[in-house]
């Protein structure tokens, strides 16, 4: 047994462990490819939807691979991101609303409202499950990337609307979290 180089065996096992985690993470996040494909098909700006979709897939798989607390953010983040995505894709097909002579695109306000709802949702889950900051960061990132696949309908203005809405939604949760910790 003395002749066995344990550290070499351990290194090899560690490499395989990381590969196995990465494989499981990619497979675990693979169903989101359907969502990305649907979003890319329904969005008028296919390229930006695909770009955000790729980013979403990389970040989601990365969070699952990393594990620990942050992996718990994957499902809530993705689910909350569906709100702005669905709203934006629906509004994308309505286009704009006119009141008399004045017309306005509905995408930006829809994304802001969707982002607000998603932010409130993340706050609710984060506070209820007493999650740490990795959860909040991970879930917010995934929500923004998921929502951005639809909110890129009017360029980066929609994504900005989504981000502002989400930030406002998160604010109340973060304040509550801070108050809870200071007690």
């Amino acid at each position, binding site marked *: 047994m003395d002749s066995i180089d344990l550290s070499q*065996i351990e290194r090899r096992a560690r490499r395989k*462990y990381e590969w196995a*985690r990465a494989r499981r993470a990619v497979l675990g996040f693979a169903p989101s490819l359907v969502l990305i494909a649907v979003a890319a098909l329904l969005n008028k700006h296919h390229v930006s939807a695909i770009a955000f979709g790729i980013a979403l897939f990389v970040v989601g798989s990365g969070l699952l691979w990393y594990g620990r607390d942050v992996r718990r953010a994957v499902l809530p983040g993705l689910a909350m991101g569906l709100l702005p995505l669905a709203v934006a894709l629906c509004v994308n097909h309505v286009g704009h609303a006119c009141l008399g002579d004045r017309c306005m695109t509905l995408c930006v306000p829809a994304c802001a409202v969707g982002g607000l709802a998603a932010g409130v949702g993340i706050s609710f889950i984060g506070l209820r499950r007493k999650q740490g900051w990795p959860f909040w960061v991970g879930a917010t990132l995934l929500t923004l990337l998921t929502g951005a696949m639809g909110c890129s309908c009017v360029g980066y203005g929609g994504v900005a609307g989504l981000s502002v809405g989400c930030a406002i939604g998160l604010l109340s949760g973060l304040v509550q979290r801070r108050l809870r910790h200071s007690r």
Partner: protein
Amino acid sequence: MSTEPRPQLDSLLVQLADGERAVFTQVFRILWQPVHRLCSSMLKNDADAADAAQQALEKVLTRCGEYDRKRPALPWALAIAAWECRTIARKRTRRREVPEDEAPVLGSGSEEELAQRELMLAAIDALGELSEQDREALVATFWEEATNVTGATLRKRRERALTRLRDTFKRLYGLD
């Protein structure tokens, strides 16, 4: 082997499955000895035992996400090791890897040894046909590793696993 590291191993394996890399070395070090010992006792060959133990540990660590948190970790890991021993023993039989100089010399002692070895390989083969739970029960019993059950439940489980092992042996080799 002391009983102390077992509950610790269970929680460490759970942590590792959750992605806590800091416990990797600890899990590896706790598992290496019992896994290597099991492989040595099953394969009776140092090189094969080291190969089997290495491959078994790699499998245990890469499959830690599949570990059932309600069950003790060590029998689960040893069941995987027993399966790995079976695979290596099969390969060895198929390729006839035993070199000339290591081949047993004819004579009553070596014949007995050879017969025992063949029997062991057959038993490992039959063990591999059983379910994971049966394998865990038998491995835990015969290699004195703790399971999550004791007393009458363990006896009953072991009895059932032995009956199934006997049936499998009979089915595979046509004898008891």
